[in-house]
């Protein structure tokens, strides 16, 4: 299976890309869907879990042990195990990604809340903030940068991991890899790698923008 491109074969065939632009666009959309939905689900679960861990400190160590184990699970292994339960569906790819997001975000939320200086918390109590108002108006905003850092890591990792799903046929841009490999044809592979990286960079940039909007006080 020696597969170096022949001398007359360029590394990238632009005409192929032009012809398949529609398909590639569809894969890109699929890729975005497969990577973003798990981030949202992971965030929705991680917030209450993280809050609980920050409030009742004793549950944090076991939760941390579980999340770091989850993070260690190879994606491909989770995908194929889940096939038995959720079949060859989007859900099969999104469940592991949501778990990874969760395992990155829970420590992020806890660290973020712990980063709230004690004097700030006490000042809020002294000014008559109730627990819920204090959480929403004081503690969560201060925790935003740490949580956002976790969110960026999770989003970028998910975007890169989605392509592994191509091994079970659901991989967004990852399908360009398997396609190129099966046909011994580098163009789709290079396009897939480049688009995945661009998508990751774009998502990361978007999140940085969101963070700046959420925390105007930290802008220099």
């Amino acid at each position, binding site marked *: 299976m020696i*597969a170096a491109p022949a001398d007359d074969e360029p590394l990238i065939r632009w005409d192929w890309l032009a012809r398949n632009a529609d398909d590639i666009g569809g894969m890109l959309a699929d890729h975005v869907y497969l990577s973003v939905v798990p981030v949202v689900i992971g965030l929705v679960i991680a917030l209450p879990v993280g809050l609980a861990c920050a409030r009742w400190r004793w549950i944090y160590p076991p939760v941390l042990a579980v999340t770091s184990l989850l993070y260690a699970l190879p994606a*491909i292994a989770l995908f194929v195990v889940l096939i038995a339960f959720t079949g060859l569906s989007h859900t099969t790819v999104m469940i592991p990604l949501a778990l990874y997001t969760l395992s990155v975000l829970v420590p992020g939320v806890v660290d973020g809340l712990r980063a709230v200086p004690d004097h700030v918390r006490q000042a809020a109590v002294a000014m008559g903030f109730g627990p819920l108002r204090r959480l929403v108006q004081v503690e969560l905003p201060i925790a935003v940068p740490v949580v956002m850092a976790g969110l960026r890591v999770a989003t970028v990792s998910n975007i890169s991991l989605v392509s592994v799903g191509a091994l079970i046929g659901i991989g967004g841009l990852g399908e360009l890899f*398997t396609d190129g490999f099966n046909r011994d044809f580098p163009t789709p*592979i290079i396009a*897939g790698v480049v688009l995945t990286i661009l998508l990751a960079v774009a998502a990361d940039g978007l999140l940085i923008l969101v963070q700046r909007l959420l925390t105007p006080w930290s802008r220099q």
Partner: protein
Amino acid sequence: MNAILNALRWFGQSEQWSGPDGIPQRLLEHLWYSGLAFAITLVIALPLGLALGHVRRGRAAAALGFAVVSSANGARALPTLGLLILAVLLAGSGVGPTLVPLVVLAVPPVLVNAYTGVRQVEPQIRDAAEGMGMTGSQVLWRVEIPVALPLVLLGMRTAAIQIVSTATIAAYVGLGGLGRYIIDGLKRQEYDSTAGGAILVIALAFLIQLIFTGLHRLSVSPGVRLSASH
């Protein structure tokens, strides 16, 4: 539930335990490729990360440090499968080309954690060490590395798990190891073999996690653990 029973039955079949496609052989292959990639990663990333963290002065060091930290973020965005396939298509199949993406993906976490670990050692601790007459390498070995050890180990653990996981995927481009069960099973639609392989890979990941937890207990000073929890 059926699938799990099937996978368990798969483990019970005698042909899984001998021959070139037997579990012992595949496990050994997996450990061998992963171990090789891990060793290469450490040889590249550990000295570089530790040295860069240790050398703090000068604009060049700061620029290199920034590059190191960015490399970790960058590496996270690289699609593993795409990289593996590209490496094989461009450099030919075989262990060598396949190991390259494994190492490329594993170097950043080791590099960054070693770098930040040493860099984050409090300046007054380093100042005290130098002020008492430690030479540069004594400061590194006797103070900076022991204090940075939790992060250094974290980076190594991340890299090890990353490698085991990527080596599984590498079966798609022809590498041996436990990934074969998954990839071949998918191709032949033998899902009991796929699930069995997945369970083996998960067990291996757990084992690595466990080994590093043990390593942490053994090698990190209780004093460092105490000061981290404060």
